[in-house]
C-alpha cells in the first residue's frame, strides 16, 4: 500500500498480468507504457517485456484496436492504449465486430482484450476534438462489450485487473483529466467487479449519479450540499455497460430525488439512461440532469469553462429539487 498516481496504479496492474502471462501483449502509440511514482520502481513495459510483446507502430488506432482483438481471438490476452485523438477511430471494429462476435459464434469466440480509450483532459483552450468528452455514450450503447470508466486510482487498478482477466472484451475509458489524482493503492493484485456501481457517499434526500470526470465535480457539490444540511447520496456508475440498475433504483427509491451529472453532451448522456431506469422502476421521482450542452467544446477558456458543468452548477441544480 502506498500513495500512487493514476497511471502508476494502472500500469502496476498491467505489469502484474504480463508477468503472470507470458503471452500477453500491449500496443501503444504516443504514450510509452512508462510510469514512475515517488519511492517506487519505475514501470516500463517496453523494456521489461521487450519489443515483441510491447509494440508501437504508426498512427493507426484502428489497427491497434483490431490487432489486440486478433491477439485475443488467438488466445493471447492483449491490451492497447488509444490516445484521445483516436478515441473513435476503432469504433466500428469494437461496435460491429468485437461486440457481436461472441453472440454470432454462439459463444465460441473468446476475447480477453482491453481497449484503454483515453478521453481528453478537457483542458480549456484546446477545443473541438482536443477537448471533447463524449465517448462514454457511444461505447455504452454497444452490446457485448463491457464498458467501464473508473474515477479513482484504486478503481483504475482493480478494474484493470478485472478487465484483463475477463474473457469479455472491455472498453476501459480513461478520462485523462483524472491523471492528477493520487490515493492509497494496494501493491498486490485485486479486482474491482465489472458490473457494480459504487455508493461514494450515503444519504437520504437526494441521489447524485455521475461517472468518470464528473465524479470529482459531483463529490465537491455533495460536500457543499452537506454543509447546507442536505443528506446527499453519491453514486459512481463506474460501469456503463452493464449498468448497475439495482444500486440506482435502491437509492432513488429512498431519496425520490435524482440528479445526474455528466461531462458528456446532454442528448443521450449516460444520465439519460440513469434517469430512464430510475423512473421506469420508481414512481414519483423528481429529476434533474446536468450535462455539457449539445455543442462541440469551443477553444476559448471563457466559453468552455462556462459550458462545462462544475460543482457550482451541480449545487444549484440540486437545490432546485431539494
Amino acid at each position: 500500500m502506498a500513495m500512487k498516481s493514476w497511471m502508476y496504479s494502472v500500469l502496476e496492474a498491467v505489469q502484474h498480468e504480463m508477468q503472470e502471462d507470458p503471452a500477453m501483449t500491449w500496443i501503444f502509440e504516443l504514450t510509452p507504457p512508462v510510469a514512475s511514482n515517488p519511492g517506487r520502481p519505475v514501470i516500463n513495459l517496453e523494456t521489461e517485456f521487450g519489443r515483441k510483446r510491447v509494440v508501437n507502430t504508426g498512427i493507426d488506432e484502428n489497427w491497434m484496436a483490431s490487432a489486440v482483438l486478433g491477439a485475443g481471438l488467438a488466445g493471447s490476452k492483449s491490451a492497447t492504449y488509444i490516445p484521445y485523438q483516436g478515441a473513435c477511430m476503432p469504433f466500428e471494429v469494437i461496435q460491429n465486430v468485437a461486440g457481436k462476435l461472441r453472440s454470432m459464434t454462439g459463444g465460441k469466440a473468446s476475447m480477453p482484450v482491453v481497449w484503454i480509450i483515453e478521453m481528453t483532459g478537457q483542458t480549456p483552450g484546446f477545443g473541438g476534438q482536443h477537448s471533447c468528452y463524449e465517448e462514454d455514450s457511444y461505447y455504452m450503447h454497444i452490446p457485448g462489450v463491457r464498458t467501464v470508466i473508473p474515477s479513482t486510482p484504486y478503481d483504475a487498478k482493480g478494474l484493470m485487473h478485472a478487465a484483463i482477466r475477463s474473457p469479455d472484451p472491455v472498453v476501459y475509458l480513461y478520462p485523462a483529466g483524472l491523471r492528477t489524482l493520487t490515493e492509497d493503492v494496494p501493491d498486490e493484485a485485486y479486482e474491482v467487479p465489472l458490473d457494480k456501481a459504487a455508493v461514494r457517499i450515503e444519504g437520504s434526500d437526494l441521489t447524485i449519479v455521475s461517472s468518470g470526470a464528473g465524479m470529482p465535480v459531483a463529490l465537491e457539490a455533495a460536500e457543499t450540499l452537506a454543509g447546507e444540511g442536505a443528506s446527499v447520496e453519491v453514486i459512481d456508475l463506474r460501469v456503463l455497460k452493464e449498468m448497475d440498475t439495482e444500486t440506482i433504483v435502491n437509492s432513488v427509491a429512498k431519496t425520490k430525488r435524482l440528479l445526474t451529472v455528466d461531462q458528456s453532451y446532454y442528448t443521450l448522456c449516460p444520465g439519460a439512461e440513469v434517469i430512464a431506469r430510475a423512473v421506469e422502476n420508481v414512481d414519483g421521482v423528481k429529476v434533474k440532469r446536468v450535462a455539457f450542452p449539445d455543442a462541440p467544446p469551443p477553444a476559448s477558456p471563457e466559453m468552455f469553462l462556462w459550458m462545462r458543468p462544475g460543482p457550482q452548477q451541480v449545487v444549484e441544480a440540486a437545490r432546485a429539487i431539494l
Partner: protein
Amino acid sequence: MEHDRTIPQWETEDTPVSPARRGFLMLAAASGAAISVGRSAAAFTDVPFAAADLDDDSLIGMYRTILQIRWHERRQADEMLSNPDYRGYNHFYAGQEAVATGVCAALRNSGPREQLDLVYSSHRPSGHAIAKGVDIPKMVAEMDFRATGMNGGYGAEMHISDPDVGFIGADGMIGPAPVIASGSAFAFRARGSDQVAVVFAGDGNYAAPHFHSTLNNAKLLDLPLIYVCENNLYHQYAHYSLSCPHEDIASAAAAYGITAETVDGQDVVQVYNAAKRAVDRARAGNGPTFIEAKTYRYYNHWGAPGAKVGELGAFGYDPLAITHFRPEKELRAWMQRDPVDISRRILADWGVMDAARAAEIEDEVKAEIEAAFEWALSQPLCTPEDGLRHVFAEGTVPARQFG
C-alpha cells in the same frame, strides 16, 4: 484502367511448367492453358514443387475437399430451389474451390488449440470452412438456423466459426478481417509460436482502408500473416478495375516490400505450392506473404431460397446464372477451367488415382453430403429465450422487448 474486361487471357508462352511427380505434365496442355499470372508471379522453376512431394492420401484429400465444397453447394442449391421449408442461404463458392483447398492443405488444422493455424474467412465462407476441416453436418445445420448447428443458430452462413479447427470464422464485413488477422499473427510472434494466421479476402477488400493497415503493419512487424486475395474479378456488381488501379492486386502488396505472387486459383497444385512457400516463410520468422489467386465464381453473388430453376437470376448450376454485368462468354471461358476437372486430371496424370477411383470418391462425397443434410435438417430449431445468452461469457442479458 487497362484491364481486359471480357475473358481471362490464355498465355501459352509463359505458362508455368510443373515437373510432374510421376511423369511430366504441361498443365497448359491439359487444361487449355494456365491463366496469366502477371509480372509479379514467382519464378516457378526456382522453387520445389511441394505438392509433388505429398503422399497420395494428401493429394486425394485435396480432391475430396474440392468435391465436398462443390457438392455441399449443389446439394444446398437443390434445397433452396425445391424445399419450401429450407431457410439457409449462401454466398456460393463454386468455381473457387481450389483456392481454399490448396491454402488450407498447407496449414495445421488439428491438434491442440495453441498449435493450430488460424483462418479468417470472408462473407463467402463455406468453402474456407470445409477446407479448414469443420464438421460439415454441423455447418449445414448452422446454415439452416438449427439449435445444434455449429454456432447454435446464432451466426448462420455469414458468421460460421469453429475455433477447434482454427477456423476463426466468417466475417460479413468488408475491411476488418485482415486487420484482425494481423493481430493474431502479432500474438503468435509475441509468444514465440510458429503458428500462422491466414486471411481470405476478395478483390473488394482491396479498396478498404484496412488493406493499408494490414499490409503496412504486417511488413513493419514481420508478421506470420498470409493474405490470400481471391480475385474473382467482381465485388457484387462491380468489376475490380472500378476500385483498383492495379492489374494484379499483388503488386499493391509488393509495394510494401511484402513477398507477393499471383497464382492460378483454379489449379489446386499451384495454390498449394504458393501457400506452402508462404507457410514455410512465416513459420521460419520471415514474415508475411500475399497470394493473389485469380479465380471466378460461377453463381450469383448470393443465393437464397425462393429462386426458381432456370429463371434468369437464379443461381442454378445449369442453366447458368448470368446477369448483365458479367459477360456470358467470360463465365463460360472460366468454366472451361473448372477446379474439379483440373485437380482430377492432375491426380490422374500423376498416377495417384484412376477414373474409377475418382468416380468412387465423388460418390462417397455425395453420400457424405447427403447424410449431412439429412442429419442437419432434422435438428431442432432454436429456443427464443436463448437469444439472451452468449452476449457475455457468463449469464444472460435482460429481456427488454416487453417494456
